[in-house]
């Protein structure tokens, strides 16, 4: 059972990593922020799977905290004005 | 190789990587980022030390863990101070640089402008 959970966690991390390669490159900052959010979601999922498999205590709180803070980071991004370095298709959305 | 040793090797690599960033990148903000990388590498070394100290029913030695928590908070405060300095410097001069001669013109009114 635990091997299955771990394998699932690994698979999620792998897909996230692939997505990361694609998106961290940009072109815009908003794309990059999306990459961060993507790995946030995937990371939390694999975190819970790893915790279930290895029996570490208290990991659900870490997952909760991560979920809340990931949302917080994107709010900060929006608040920072999020102007893109490269021309953004919809600059009006960001201001 | 145990996961603890692996984490320790990652820590060592992070210290090297961060050190390179600190030395090679002239922008203060990038240097601050690199400092954070070094910091987390150092914390990971504490982490493997803690993990290798698993005993008495604990999966990891609590003392180094507590030190890492203290260290993370201090590192954050240091980043905040460095960022504030960088931003102020940028506001004053229009650029953020650590060059020693950046605007070292001798002050014309009282060198000791207190």
């Amino acid at each position, binding site marked *: 059972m635990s091997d299955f959970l771990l394998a699932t966690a690994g698979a999620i991390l792998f897909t996230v990593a692939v997505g990361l390669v694609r998106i961290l490159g940009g072109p815009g900052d908003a794309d990059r922020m999306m990459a961060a959010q993507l790995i946030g979601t995937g990371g939390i999922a694999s975190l819970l799977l790893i915790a279930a498999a290895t029996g570490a205590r208290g990991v659900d709180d870490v997952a909760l905290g991560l979920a809340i803070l990931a949302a917080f980071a994107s709010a900060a991004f929006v608040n920072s004005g999020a102007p893109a370095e490269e021309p953004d298709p919809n600059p009006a959305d960001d201001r | 190789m145990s996961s603890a040793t692996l984490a320790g090797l990652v820590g060592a690599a992070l210290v090297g990587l961060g050190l390179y960033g600190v030395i090679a990148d002239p922008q203060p903000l990038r240097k601050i980022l690199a400092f954070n990388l070094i910091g987390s590498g150092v914390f990971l070394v504490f982490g493997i030390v803690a993990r290798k100290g698993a005993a008495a029913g604990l999966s990891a030695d609590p003392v180094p863990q507590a030190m890492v928590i203290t260290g993370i908070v201090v590192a954050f405060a240091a980043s905040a101070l460095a960022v504030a300095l960088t931003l102020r410097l940028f506001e004053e001069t229009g650029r953020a640089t650590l060059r020693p001669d950046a605007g070292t013109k001798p002050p014309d009114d009282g*060198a000791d402008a207190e």
Partner: protein
Amino acid sequence: MTEGASAFAATAGGSLLALPILVPAAGVLLSFLLGGRQAERIALALMPVQFGFAVAIASLIWRSGQPLVYVLGGYAPPLGIALRADGFSAVMLVTTSLIMPAAGLYARTNFATPNDGTERRAPLVFWTLLQAIQAALSLIFLGGDLFNLYVALELLTFAAAPLVCLDGRPETLAAALRYLMFALFGALFYLLGVALLYGAYGTLDIVLLSRQIRAEPAVWLAAGLMTAGLLAKTALFPLHLWLPPAHANAPAAASAVLSGLVVKGSFFLIVRLWFNVLPALPNAVPGAILAALGSAAILAGSALALRQERLKLLIAYSTVAQIGYLFLMFPLASGPWSAEAFSGGVMQALSHAFAKAAMFLSAGLIAESLGHDRIAGLGGAGRAMPVTFLALGLGGLSLMGLPPSGGFAAKWLLMKASIEAGQWVWAVVMLAGGLLAGGYLYRVLAPALSGNRPRLKSPPRRSRENVALALALAAVLLAFAPPTFFAFLQIGRPAAGAALR
């Protein structure tokens, strides 16, 4: 820990050790809370208290002939934290508690809160951080646990860096940022070494560690990393780049504290590391490396000081040079002459603290009175403000190492030790450094004492001149330190390398 038990038998009066840390820390919190003029009042009121603590600790050590030990919270090391004071700590504590009030009295003019009591930025920050420096230094001198000392290093950084850019000019901001970067680098490398030592021995208590340390890879790497980090904070050549702009641009009272005391904090930890934590390591090679860097610092720092156009920068570069002397004690610290070398190093730290504080305060007065501190424009200034220049000159006497001065005593002891050890090269460097110091001081003093009196914007206030003069006289008086003083320095000093004891 039966083995550790004897090291932590509570010594009478040990609880006194917590007070020089906790009282200024409480002062910081209160000053920040109450704000306005209260910050200055609290800071100045606590300074005599701090002096009282320092003297009480010193006299307890003197009477018992043993280091003072205190265990915090009843949790004995290795689990908990111990404070420990030996002769060296006590001397540094007393020195700090003398220089701090001098800087404080001097700074009252510059950092006064307006009469209506409105809180101003610079005064609040200055008086709060001055107390923070005091707390951090006390902890550095008294801390017995390497991680606790890391916290002390960070306290010191956070207290010192904002003082550099208190006036907000762009060049001071750049200087403060550079200072902060070097300090962060130093603290992280120190911390990395701490992690390795804990990993190897499971304790960070200095006494417990010193009993277990063996020459093995982890220890060598830890020693190298920690020393490199502390050197960056001490500004030993070639890691000195941050110091001159930072110390030259800070307000004079802050410069006095930064140059006189703050760099000594990290130097103190290097001494602690090699003499108290790692005495079991063969230290001939590391000692020689440190002294070689020190020699380079003496020559390069003095040569650069000779070329400066501004007085405060000249004094700052001379700090780079004088820091170099501190490191000449390391290769000489084993063998029968080790006590002499150790005393010489400590004497250099003390006399430089007083002399440099006096010189920065004098330079501040000169800059305020003339409206500038360009060396080319100092002609005749010595006639217009003789007391200020007397303080500057007496401080310079110590830097050159001419008798009678603490600097002379320090350099004499170091030179004697190096000749007895057959390591002539350090003696030659010291002589060259003295000559160069004479050169750069001549550049300042010769024109100042001749020529026409310049018009002063405002004459310096006599009380402030007296503060600078008192510090300079203290540097001179150190020359007359009695032999008991040197015996006191040896209290609690573990035998280094092959030394007896």
